């Protein structure tokens, strides 16, 4: 690590694995331990639930298409050393705001979806910029700050759509608004853009018995390409340098605050689009709740895929969504079959989501503390007079 910091531009993706030749096998094992554990859990759950494979595969394809974009939007802030961006909730809110506008204008189908994606950009860029400013003031506490910021923004979101719409913001649409004429209804029907993206391409082309949302996977594939290309650009390399060590990056002439701002803005915009993809698949949304769990579930999925607070790849995201949502599908049924109480499975599922985040955060803090201690010890050995 110490060498890497001096020359950030030479760092390669597999850097951590290359360190310490003697323990590389251990290292790989420890890196894969989380996904392996969850794979076992999934396997046990699938066996216990006794679902038909066809139903399961179908469900997983749907959920991959629905959630993967959101999870992928978390990768760039990790690269820039901002940790897991709990602030994508704010991106999700921008996406929903755009969706509300498009629904109000009654533009449906793919054009409506694309228009929503376009409208969400100014919102999410602006809000992402504000998020970045706040996070730059809370260096070292980005995650808890981003998390609280999500709640704070949720308050503002409710203020706008529950109180200001119909009072300060003129709007008259009885289909969308509460009967009092102030505030939006709790659920929003998205029939107009329901599955607009999922069915945009080759909607009749099936893979065996499974319907595949080709266009959604195409978009997700493009995001994967963008992410892996982005890490190789100058900006991407700068982010990596900032993520490795802020101070050394600053000394070598990188504008740390600006780089972090850009990372958060990109993540927020992607979060908004991710939420749009998520909602067009569901076809309906809770005006005031749909965004709340987005951050937590996406982060839990990424961590289950083997990512950590300082390292996340596209594969972590894909494997994570696969495992997390398999668990999601099977756990209520497994709970019912094993204990006879379906709620047990549901509680177990949220226990897992919370627990995996807690464990991942704890492990990371623990390791970085040990790492810092060993680094200090090494420095003390080299420079006895210091």
């Amino acid at each position, binding site marked *: 690590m110490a060498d890497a910091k001096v020359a950030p531009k030479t760092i390669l993706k597999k850097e951590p694995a290359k360190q310490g030749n003697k323990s590389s096998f251990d290292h790989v094992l420890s890196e894969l331990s989380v996904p392996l554990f969850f794979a076992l859990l999934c396997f046990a759950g699938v066996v216990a639930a006794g679902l038909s494979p066809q139903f399961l595969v179908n469900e997983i394809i749907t959920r991959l298409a629905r959630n993967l974009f959101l999870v992928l939007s978390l990768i760039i802030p990790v690269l820039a050393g901002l940790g897991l961006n709990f602030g994508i909730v704010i991106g999700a809110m921008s996406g929903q705001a755009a969706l509300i506008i498009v629904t109000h204008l009654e533009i449906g189908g793919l054009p409506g979806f694309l228009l929503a994606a376009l409208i969400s950009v100014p919102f999410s860029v602006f809000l992402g910029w504000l998020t970045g400013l706040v996070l730059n003031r809370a260096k070292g506490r980005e*995650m808890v700050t981003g998390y*609280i910021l999500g709640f704070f923004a949720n*308050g503002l979101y409710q203020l706008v759509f529950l109180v200001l719409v119909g009072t300060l913001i003129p709007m008259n649409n009885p289909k969308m608004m509460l009967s009092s004429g102030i505030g939006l209804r709790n659920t929003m029907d998205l029939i107009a853009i329901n599955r607009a993206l999922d069915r945009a391409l080759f909607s009749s082309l099936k893979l065996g018995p499974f319907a595949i949302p080709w266009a959604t996977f195409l978009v997700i594939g493009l995001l994967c390409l963008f992410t892996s290309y982005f890490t190789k650009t100058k900006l991407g390399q700068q982010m990596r340098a900032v993520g490795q060590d802020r101070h050394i990056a600053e000394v070598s002439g990188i504008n740390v605050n600006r780089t972090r701002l850009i990372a958060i803005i990109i993540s927020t915009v992607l979060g908004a689009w991710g939420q749009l993809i998520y909602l067009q698949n569901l076809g309906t949304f809770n005006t005031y709740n749909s965004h709340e769990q987005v951050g937590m579930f996406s982060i839990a999925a990424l961590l289950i895929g083997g990512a950590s607070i300082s390292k996340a790849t596209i594969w972590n995201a894909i494997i994570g969504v696969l495992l997390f949502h398999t668990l999601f599908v099977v756990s209520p049924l497994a709970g019912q079959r094993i204990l006879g*109480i379906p709620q047990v499975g549901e509680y*177990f599922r949220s226990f897992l989501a919370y*627990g995996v985040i807690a464990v991942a*955060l*704890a492990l990371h*803090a623990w390791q970085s*503390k040990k790492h810092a201690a060993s680094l200090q010890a090494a420095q003390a050995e080299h420079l006895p007079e210091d």
Partner: protein
Amino acid sequence: MALNTNKVTNIFTSHHLKACYEKLGLPRLIISSFLLALFILAFVMKMDITILLSDSLARIGMNGLLVLAMLPTLVTGVGLNFGLPVGFVCGLVGGVISLEYNLTGFTGFFVAILCAIPLAVLTGYLYASLLDRVRGQEMMVGTYVGFAVVAGMCIFWLTAPFNNPSMIWAIGGQGLRVTITLYEHYSKVLNNFLAFKLFGVTIPTGLLLFFGLFCWLVHLFFRTRTGLAMLATGANPMYAKSSGIDTRAMRYTSVIISNVLAAIGALVYAQSYGFLQLYTAPLYMAFPAVAAALIGGASLKKATVSHIIIGTVLFQTLLTIALPVTQTVLRGTDISEIARMIISNGMILYALTRNERG
């Protein structure tokens, strides 16, 4: 409160005004003026202010101990205890055990506390040893450990071997109910203890005394040898260590005390509310408590009992009167929940983004 008299006498000199502003801090100034505006509105709208005040007093006593639980960890530099639900569910377990034996009145309440304390000490120790390993990330880890504990306890409530028919689901006969009424057990034992009316305002004497007692105990505790060692640990860990204080033990102790206070606080909350709320109810318990402590002027580096009391009074009064007042003024639109979200989380954000030492 001595602050306010200072303010009045010296208000005309800008120098003092500035010093006063710095001491009060922008957020407390905003919250206080907001509160004042609400009271004026309530007065203008001819609302029954005695009811508002009675409710506020009850809410202050109800939540006070949970806010006080923030103090030990803030003092030793562990940070805001977002893991409050860990202690909270210990209190709930104590409450449920006491219910299982059909204990009533003060016996029921104190047996519940006695059952909760050992649990809170044990879980507090485990929680502290985790927090000690994740120094620097305590708040985030604490938040999710709290969530995970609440979610895990959901499974416990559902499968725990309790038999008292007043607590378990009527259908199926297994698993505790989501809310258990305490009406026949120890509902409002503290609230009603020596309660009296003063100009139409109900004073929940027992409740306020209980909160006051704990504030006093904590205040005294920080005068003892251990308490002073804790203060030193938070103020300057290196210095504390070099003067022979076991800083690690101090941090452990602070987390355990915080956890025990949270457990007792949960029971005080439940008796005042009249119901034990199980399952996912304790999930977000930490946030209002954190916000109240911060509104009182506590920061990640400095916190005192007076911060806790001021914060609880300001925040809980605000929450209590915001709902009826805004409902009267805005004709049915409820912005109190929104105001609560914006104020409490804005307050936490303010504390997190302040550039303080360290």
